[in-house]
């Protein structure tokens, strides 16, 4: 097992370098630089503008800049945001908590709702439950997030006035209850948007498993149907389901961008968007590092989890 983990970590390194280099190049290719953003607001002479470019390191060729950035990263230094003038690590640290809270709650909710729905749909194909699950999957996958957000805000905050429309707390209110009230609508929306794929995957996987011989054996043993479905069928269907849930992880860390914007939720997603539109390369790269590392780590954890889920997969 240890060898397996070490090998995976070693493979992750070139992947990480590729991702970060690609993002670095792409963000630099976008027209406009952080110097331009700063120059927008003030009256900089040509000389001052040039000086600014030098101080931001923009006069060097792109691969040199990448190397410098990478060198800093290895020392643990993420650089400073050129828009917010705070250390990038500080910014990320402040924003990652809310993001994890929002998307973590959504994923947990989505899993708790989607798996039972998918299982029931698989056990009663073509019934009302199955149709309901298809509708949910379809809507979740097709509805644009901003649409759901705006509808949600309109219905619950404006018309019914039972849930807040933005922010994480009411000012001065540090209670858990208030936080949950603010969390409810955005996390439900993100949950619904992502439920669709989990329901579909669960239904498909469980349906397939139900056709296997060992299910027949289980039934012929006289086991209760519930045990057959959950202990024998669901357990075998877990691998594709877990994979689907695992693919939601980049969202977990990167933040559900549109939802965060609509609800004024101070998470990583809105940090990234702001950084991109203000060409804040350091913040963009910092967020990229955090997201890609977490994706790589989660993939590794998933692979380890698979070996426990399916004993046929060799460990190592």
């Amino acid at each position, binding site marked *: 097992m240890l060898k397996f983990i070490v090998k995976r970590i070693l493979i992750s390194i070139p992947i990480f370098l590729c991702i970060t280099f690609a993002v670095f190049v792409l963000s630099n290719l*976008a*027209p*406009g630089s952080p110097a*331009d*953003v*700063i*120059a*927008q*607001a*003030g*009256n*900089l*002479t040509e*000389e*001052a*503008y040039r*000086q600014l470019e030098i*101080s931001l390191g923009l006069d060097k060729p792109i691969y040199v800049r990448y190397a410098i950035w990478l060198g800093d990263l290895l020392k643990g230094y993420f650089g400073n*945001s050129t*828009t*917010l*003038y*705070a*250390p990038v690590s*500080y*910014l990320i640290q402040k924003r990652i908590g809310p993001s994890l809270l929002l998307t973590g709650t959504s994923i947990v909710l989505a899993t*708790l709702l989607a*798996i*039972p729905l998918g299982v*029931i749909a698989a056990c009663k194909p073509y019934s009302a439950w199955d149709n309901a699950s298809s509708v949910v999957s379809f809507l979740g996958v097709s509805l644009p997030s*901003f649409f759901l*957000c705006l509808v949600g*805000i*309109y219905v619950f*905050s*404006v018309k019914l*006035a039972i849930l807040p*429309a*933005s*922010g994480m707390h*009411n*000012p001065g*209110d540090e209670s*858990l*209850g*208030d936080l*949950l*009230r603010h969390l*409810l609508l955005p996390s439900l929306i993100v949950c619904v948007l992502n439920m669709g794929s989990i329901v579909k995957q669960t239904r498909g996987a469980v349906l397939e498993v139900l056709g296997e011989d060992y299910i027949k054996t289980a039934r012929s043993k006289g086991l209760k149907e519930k045990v057959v479905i*959950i202990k024998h069928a669901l357990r075998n269907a877990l691998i594709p389901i877990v994979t689907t849930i695992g693919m939601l992880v980049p969202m977990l860390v990167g933040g559900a961008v549109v939802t965060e*914007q*609509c*609800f*004024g939720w*101070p998470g990583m997603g*809105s940090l990234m968007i*702001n950084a991109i*539109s*203000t*060409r804040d390369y350091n913040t963009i790269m910092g967020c990229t590092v955090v997201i890609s590392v977490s994706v790589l780590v989660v993939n590794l954890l998933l692979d380890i989890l698979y070996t426990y889920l399916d004993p046929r997969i060799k460990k190592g």
Partner: protein
Amino acid sequence: MKKLLSMMLILAMTVGLLSACGNSNQSTTAATTTANSTTQSGGNETQPAATEPHGTMVYALTNSWGSLNPYHIVNYTGTNVHDKLWETLYSIDEEGNLVNRSCESYEVQEDGKVYIIHLRKDVKWHDGEPVTAADWEFAARLLADPAVTGMAGKTYPANLSGVDASGNIVETEPFGLVATDDYTLKFTLDNPLNYNLFMLNYSRFYHPLPKHLLDGKMTGANFVENEFWLNPVGCGPFKFVSTTPGEEVVFVANENFYYHVQIKNLIIRKVAAASLASSIISGDIDCTTAVDLNDLEELRAASGVTVRKANQTEYVYCHINNALCSKEVRQAINLAIDKQQIINTVLNGEGVPAETPINPASPLCGVDCTSTRDVAKAKELLAAAGWDSNTVITMATPSDFREDIALIMQQNLAEVGVQLKLVSCDQTAMQAGLKDGTYQMGMQTWGMHYQNPTYFQICQTPGSSINLSFIDYDDYANYCHQIDAAQDSTELYNLVQEYIKYMLEDMGHIGIAHRNSYAAWSANVINGPTASSHDLSWEWTVKD
């Protein structure tokens, strides 16, 4: 299956219960504050009159403000945050008048070359230390340190003596901002300037910094990225509590401020433009000055919400590459655009057509600036200028209302034989593209005060980084310098008329409209902000 369902039910019930708890908390605080306000207005109280600041206001901005460093100007939204925490000599009210802040009185000497500012003696830092003139000089010298680069606010003090065009100290001249005693500041300028205009244009770029905390610790080298800005000690009407950079700043009232601050907690928050209206209606946000014109109807219809038209308009205009489009061509394009139609359809009628940056309703505008669309004349001008109708002008449009205006412009210009190609991009890409010539036209807004005719000059001065029309002659700059220097109000007025006439003739930029601006307040607000960058925050008050 049943187990999962019951778990979900329990979860739902718990959330419901907790939200009920949250609700009841809110109602009790509401009850106590209404009790307070009734005693205040009632007059027959056993308690002392409530001079205590009370309540919480959540103030929404649609743009980010960068950091809490007051010289860190990312866009003009920053002033809305900085003037709460830091001191300035003046604030500017909605009408464009100077409102005294730290400046108690002044004298103009040497025909406008020297200003003697007498500072208020009762201004204190939030840690209790008094603010003196030395703090002002300290800050100005720090900013002018050549080691400070990359700050947009750096170049504005360039018109002081002892400071060069890049905003750096020049050792051979006396420094232009000096503390002559504890509460007197002496401004020495390179050239005489009109005091009122100087303060309208530049007072927000001068602040004191706590010398007793920063001397020796903050230098030019670590000025920009200093951890002091993450936990600043200011001297303005509100004290810093906490911040999530780029998202939110939490302030609490400075009860020792020389004006009486009436709000206890002020939270400034960045909110996406799309959710602004609904947040005001639901009460999550208390006020904003960035109301989208399309939300006006809905806000007006909502109960308890106040919608207030500001005494200030925004100048919507187009940069146009002067090298590609000669004066005649620019005039023709200006004549071809149906500005009234644009105002009616895109701006919901909220505004007047603009020919120059100066609003015709301004008291300083005595020239007839009526806009008339004249397609025939436009065609004439284009023919006389030898305009090749195969030339394509590429215009960059960020995707907001500017895109809608651009579409109408495209149709208008097609009628006179000018091809306009529209490209969608974001703000930064537009400016970068205008700069390197990829785009020849782009649309922008600019807040112009009625009383400040030369505010637009940085866009018209050769060598400026925002001169995106590539005006390469000095006429605009000369007019503005003369206006800025005029010490006599009649002379000022006449010079402004010359300036306006020149702009009508030269058309360095194409004006589209002077757009109305609105503020919206939730039911919780009794008095709030009216126009961006014109906050007199000590006058604001809320119910709770």
